[in-house]
């Protein structure tokens, strides 16, 4: 079972010059066996998922499951209210007027899908996390501008202050910092 909030108290941060360098560095990190590292960039870099060895996001399946529930729920709601709980004769139409119920089924399916997608993304990403050791770095702010970083969390099995810093340097990292948040 996952903990409610992941504890991150120590992170090594290294800066890279370009998307290209970052991609290469990520590949090297993966080859070295690092798992708890991340590549920070102002935009999503194509190929980075493969480079870091990340699996496809499961979000699609989750959304599908919830959307199906939304669909059935909408259908059930309309069936129960119109044909079971208080059937009223409206324009001489059948109590369960299938075609007329499609728009609401459709809308509610979309609605559940959309909410699931967003809430799912936030939950999977463990957001919001307003305090992160990374944010104590002065340089890190540039990740959303035009700079590229790799961070390694101390929870990684291979993590070691000196080793990891050294390795990052070898793969082209600059301005290496160790960020703590005790």
């Amino acid at each position, binding site marked *: 079972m996952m903990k409610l909030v992941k504890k991150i108290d120590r992170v090594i941060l290294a800066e890279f010059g370009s998307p290209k360098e970052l991609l290469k560095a990520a590949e090297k990190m993966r080859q070295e066996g690092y798992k708890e590292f991340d590549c920070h960039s102002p935009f999503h870099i194509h190929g980075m998922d493969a480079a870091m060895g990340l699996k496809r996001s499961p979000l699609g399946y989750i959304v599908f499951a919830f959307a199906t529930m939304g669909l059935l729920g909408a259908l059930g709601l309309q069936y129960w209210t119109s044909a079971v709980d208080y059937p*009223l*004769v*409206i*324009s*001489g*139409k*059948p109590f369960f*007027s299938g075609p*007329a119920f499609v728009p609401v089924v459709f809308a509610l399916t979309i609605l559940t899908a959309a909410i699931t997608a967003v809430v799912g993304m936030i939950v999977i990403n463990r957001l919001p996390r307003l305090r992160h050791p990374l944010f104590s770095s002065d340089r890190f702010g540039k990740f959303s501008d035009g700079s590229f970083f790799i961070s390694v969390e101390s929870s990684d099995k291979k993590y070691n202050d000196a080793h990891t810093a050294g390795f990052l340097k070898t793969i082209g990292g600059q301005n290496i910092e160790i960020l703590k948040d005790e």
Partner: protein
Amino acid sequence: MSKKNGEMKITGKDYWRSLDQLADTPEFNTFLKREFPLGASEFDNGWSRRKFLTLMGASLAMAGLASCRRPEEKIVPYVERPEEVVPGVPLYYATSMPFSDHAFGLVIESHEGRPTKIEGNKLHSSTLGASSAIIQAQTLSLFDPDRSKKVIKGQQEKSWNDFVLNWISAFEKYKENKGAGLAVLSGMFSSPTLSRLKKTFDKNFPKASWVTYEAVSDENIYSGTKAAFGKSYRPNYSFDKARVVLSLDSDFLLTESDSINNARGFAAARNVETEKDEMNRLYMVESGYSTTGANADHRQAIGSGDIGAFTLNLANALNNLGINVTGTSAQLVSDKKFKWVDELARDLAGAKGASLVVAGRRQPAAVHALVAAINDALGNIGKTVKYSEVSDTSSSDRAGLQSLVADMNGGSVSTLIMFGSNPVYDAPADLDFTAAMAKVKTTIHFNDYADETGQLTTWHVPKSHFLESWGDTRSYDGTTGVTQPLILPLFGSVSESEMMGLLAEGKFSKGYDLVRQTWKNNNKGGNFESRWRKILHDGLQEKSTYKLQSPSVRSSVISKFLNNNPLTNSLGTSGMEIIFQSSPSLYDGRYATNGWLQELAHPISKLTWDNVAYMSNADAKTLGVKNSDVVMLELNGRSLELPVWIQPGQAENSVVVELGYGRKGAFKVGDGVGGNVNLLRSSSAVGFATGLKVTKTNRTHALACTQDHWSMEGRAIVREATLEEYRKHPKFAEEAVQHKPLVSVFDEHSYTEGYQWGMTVDLNSCVGCNACMIACQSENNIPIVGKEQVANGREMNWIRLDRYYTGDVEDPETVHQPVLCQHCENAPCETVCPVAATVHDAEGLNVMVYNRCIGTRYCSNNCPYKVRRFNFFNYTKDYSEVEKMTQNPDVTVRFRGVMEKCTYCTQRISAAKIEAKINGRKVVDGDITTACQQACPVDALTFGNINDAESRVSKKKKFNRNYALLSELNVKPRTTYLAKVRNPNSRIKKA
């Protein structure tokens, strides 16, 4: 709306306090005992209680106090419950309504002592259960807060006792000099009690003068019969026996006397159940376009002044056919040619004894005399028309008014009593009544409003409404009826009989005693008490009609009269002709204070809240005017401005104007509505006049018309055929739409169980009289919305009468079609309502649930008949407590923002079902009549259970004339129409 916003003059409290004036009467004491019943508690809160808001406040405060949770409502029970009153169960009393020189027998529905609805009395020959718009509107007049509430002398409020004391001293004075200088100007009446008291008055004051005048009367008819028979008679028509009818400027179906019976008889003779039936034929010759004209098979528009010439032509044509019309030999036949006179004569001659010629009351006596002669020659007298001598009545007398005014001007009148009349408003303008009145020392005005006259007189005494008075009446055929109060006078007024009693006898007697005395005199022998009880129960005395006679025309009399009064005298004069017509809604103006009638669409023009100058298209073109342009009408040096309304089918060179508008003493409802055409009337020409000059002004006056579009656009809406076509194609109504029966894509709901309500509307019977509209308004608490709202298309009528013209613009035919909620089985309104506020019930009603409605108005958009009405504002907001009393407690009063529509009178259905259920039986045909059906004099509307093959409605739905309006939409309306059939003379070619 602005009219309705006027400050309420009285509050509920004042209204009770004003009863102080009656404090010394025993009635008042009983009234005090009869404190306001259960119904009153319903006024404390509107029907929409904001429970939720109250509750929110309570829960936020988290206060556990139970009493905070909701507004308290009080129950105020009787101290002693009157034996017959059961709270919530209406009572019905018979009474009669005096009108003109006749009356209508009515039954009044009363809720806890509050009359809310008027119906015709089935036992009374004047209505036979039906009624008219004017009759239906009387409850609103009763509860009009503008009615006169005080005895006034000068500008000061006086008490009734002051007046009584004052009159008693005058009485003594005049009694001494035999009434010299005393004059009474009375409205018309037909009342045994009033007549008895008038005799006492005449006996006490032999030198006093008593003149009767009303702006609209049958005076010319009485003079005409006198000229023909040597004796004044009232004609009683049997339209049901007439196969060929000719109407000469007579709107006998609506605005003439006895129109309810005329319409009933006319429709009966027109009714066709199958194509094999025979029906009557109506020829109409008239100047304006009347409701009767709309029902004619042949109509010819000629000026009212040409009617005499037309009648002469007809007499001549009949003479040529060997039917000698007495008295015409000496007459010159005018050289003016009219359409189809010869064919008309042939048709009349072919129906000897079963034809009928009638002339309108505005036609001069000579025309009426000649008409009597024609009827005599055709053998109609004694068959389709009989005559009676009226008694117990006081009929209008213009000559008397003229001499009275001369006396007033001459200073020989010292006290003038105006008894139920308003001469300042409606006396012919040439008499200048106001100036003459100023010369009389003491003037006493007795009427239900402090009207134009009441505002100028020395004394004004408020008159009770007939629903709060004891009295009696004689109807058109002479049936004697009682008028019983349904409620004690609301505003401290006194009844006609009480006032007359005081004037005649010099002492006050209670109305009840006066009336009872009269009836006791007239019912000698036997047990009066038990007879009296039956009379009060039935509202009438059986077999009390006038004796019907069949006199013969007296050749010498009529010849002399016609020689002295030539019928061609209005021909060839210069200028246009002006025709004075009584308003179908406001009559002579006495109902101008009634909002329902003001807002009632005119049967032909569909105008509300205004009178206009109706003119033909050609005349309007010549003058360069269009609808709503104001024109100046000038006649004999007097002038009046009125907006123009182009009336298709109006005679050329003539202008029709309606009486009853332009009131100045009709308060918040009637003041300033339209123009007073009495200003153009002179005592010598009250029906029509020539020499009218019409000039265009550059102003316009906005008019509120409920139906702007004239044409059916070629759509099969009102389906109509001639009798000949009907015989050839009995199913013409169904076949008017070329359609295979439509099939739904889904299985429709089936309605085969239990009661299934439905209705038929017989377009062949419907004459377009509007009675159903006011009946519905009264039954269903439909608000008045005011002129601006009507102009904006927001009138609230649940049933409307559509009017379409067909054919030529200059000479169109007119059809009427009542349109109400059709209660479609596949109702398009229901599916679009987001909150299910309008759904179907198991009995096939399209129900509208006000308390569920959020007011999207989508249902109205999707209604192909546009019969749904929306409360754009809170129209009942400004109702005073008095006005609220007109409302039917069985029907929810709608708040702003909800849709409403015809419910088939679901409250009546529920009442009948509950009644049947309690008694362990089923509802049978006839248990339920809708308000519109009940009011209809011609039985055009039939309501009932269509699941019962024996019900009248089921049978009517099997007629081959039956069709559903817009059936091509597959909405399956429960209301269906029976197509109209006309019976034109095949020998007359259509123009």
